[in-house]
């Protein structure tokens, strides 16, 4: 659950975005710009946090009244080496925070910290970090918690979709691309698995609200409504003028579902509404096809 340290929304005097060129950071940056916020972006490309002296440089760039949003990650984390690099990256952030504490830290984490079949998932669900990606995020959460303490907000993201998503992960983004390229969407099995899909702009709005309220604690960014991959595929297919063929294939792994109890989002931000999946997919489609 989140606890708001500000009763009324006020933008931080400055927001520092670590990992500013990624899909998530760019969306948060856009939303902050719309609000007229002062933002300092530090991309991993320009400011390699793994090089010697990176922590000192970051500390020099930070101010006591900053809000720091940590998005930078080598993701998805699929190898032990990646895990170590990701942990070292946040080690540098933690070292910088020792030298220069800031007013608020927001860590963009993942629902990968939860095991499958643990649902309905809430913020109280035990994060068992069942794989490398989950372990990476969980380790970073704990590290930042040790440095930022009561001023840390952790946002655990469910599956994101959006026009600018560079990943080709199984789900709305890949379905749209393959539908556009080949007129086909291929499912694993018959696409029975249910997942909670979040439009990137909704995440950006929540992140900005967390900054405005100087919120601390844990929040799962999930809509509370899970849809099967077949349902997503059918919705995506319906957006195209031409016929899109949806095909299944023999299943190799058991069906798992993931559901969230999203009541904490509603309690934290009662007037916030997630964009329904159908509307979000349509907006993404329009954005890509019409710019």
């Amino acid at each position, binding site marked *: 659950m989140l606890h708001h340290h500000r009763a009324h929304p006020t933008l931080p005097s400055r927001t520092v975005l670590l990992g500013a060129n990624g899909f998530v950071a760019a969306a948060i940056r856009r939303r902050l710009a719309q609000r007229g916020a002062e933002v300092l972006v530090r991309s991993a490309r320009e400011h390699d946090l793994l090089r010697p002296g990176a922590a000192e440089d970051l500390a020099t760039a930070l101010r006591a009244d900053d809000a720091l949003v940590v998005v930078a990650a080598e993701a998805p984390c699929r190898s032990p080496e990646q895990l170590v690099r990701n942990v070292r990256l946040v080690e540098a952030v933690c070292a910088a925070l020792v030298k220069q504490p800031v007013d608020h830290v927001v860590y963009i984490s993942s629902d990968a910290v939860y095991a499958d079949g643990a649902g*309905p998932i*809430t913020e*109280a669900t035990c994060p068992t970090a069942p794989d490398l990606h989950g372990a990476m995020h969980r380790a970073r959460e704990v590290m930042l918690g040790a440095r930022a303490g009561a001023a840390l907000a952790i946002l655990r993201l469910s599956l994101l979709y959006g026009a600018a998503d560079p990943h080709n992960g199984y789900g709305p983004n890949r379905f749209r691309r393959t539908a556009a390229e080949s007129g086909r969407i291929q499912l694993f099995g018959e696409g029975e698995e249910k997942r909670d899909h979040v439009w990137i702009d909704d995440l950006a709005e929540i992140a900005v609200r967390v900054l405005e309220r100087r919120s601390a604690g844990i929040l799962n960014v999930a809509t*509370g409504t899970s849809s099967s991959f077949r349902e997503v595929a059918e919705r995506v297919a319906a957006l195209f003028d031409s016929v899109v063929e949806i095909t299944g294939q023999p299943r190799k792994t058991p069906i798992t579902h993931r559901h969230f*109890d999203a*009541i904490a989002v*509603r*309690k934290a931000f*009662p*007037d916030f*509404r997630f964009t329904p999946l159908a509307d979000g997919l349509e907006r993404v489609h329009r954005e890509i096809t019409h710019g």
Partner: protein
Amino acid sequence: MSGKIGYAGMTHLGIVSALAATERGFAVLGYDPDAARIAALSAGALPVVEPDLPELFARRRDRIQFSADPDSLAGCDVVIVAADVPTDDGGGSDLSNIEQLLATCAARAHPEATLVVLSQVPPGFTRAHGSKSRPLHYQVETLIFGRAVERALQPERIIVGCEDPAQPLPSAYAELLASFGCPVLPMRYESAELAKISINLMLVASITAANTLAELCEAIGADWSEIAGALRLDRRIGAHAYLAPGLGLSGGNLERDLATIRRLAAETGCDARWVDAQAQNSQRRRDWALRVLHDEVLGRTADPRVAVLGLAYKADTASTKNSPALALIENLATASVRVFDPVVPASAAAHDWVVPCESALACCEGADAIVVMTPWRAFSALSPAELAARVRRRTAIDPLGALPAGPFADAGFDYFTLGAPPRRARPR
């Protein structure tokens, strides 16, 4: 009846138990260190709300005396200690009241008098607080708010924790217990203390099963009220089983027992993980009305107005301990919330966004949703047609089924209750 029975602690439990003893023919002393409370009782004012209690009090007023003087306990053959044992947000018990009152009773009661602990205490308490010269008895209370008088007058059985259950109970105490005409079950202290918790955990298990299955009913189009009737006819489950779905655990007692079992299991290394699952289920169901409100009203209406009927944690009590209504209202800061409860003052939900109302009808004026959070009988008599004329939008959220679903649907309301799929308004 030969002996005089003293009740120490004029709490909800103490008052009801003392008056039950008068009904069984005993002369009773009601002692409490709070002089103002004793003065009010002496003047005939009951500080608790309970069906049939005023009538019982009026009928047996001549058999009970009240006193704030601890020396008055010296005249009693049996002294029964019924202090409040408050719980914190985590369900932990604060035993300081009972320890203080017990010490007073031990010091002031006649040396031959029998001392009985009636308040719920954790396993180990009674043995730790008795002595060779003054052994204690522990009597399991089964108070149910809203049914306390009925339960006190007609207990199913009386469980008594003893230092040595093979020894006969002291005669004056045995005479009191025998007057209720039910089985009396002496057992060792720890068994009796755990028996009380065991009863509550079995109830929690039933409630959790009902809540889990009721949620599935809502999702797949089944109706739990149809299923529950069939279950009650199964002798292994029983006609009186706790099968009504609810808004999580509230009132404080069941939550305390879950906390006690968790603590004991942690200390002893026993496996009580299912208790955690029940606590999680309780938390989830508590937010049921908030979820429906968000899905049906708050996400669709500008400047939403919500009428909340009922603040007590259940009907026929003024208690708001862990009340789902208060939890709901706390999370409605972006709405205008009008509240009414026949017994609980609106000050129990003191927020900027809350407007107190004088009646249920006034509460529903201009509402986008009527949410019945406590199933007071009076609410079931509300006219759907009259409410339909007063509200801005016809949405009835009635988790516990206080309103008649059919007539509300006929009157154009979308109707939502626990354990059944939404019932949309019938075309008119």
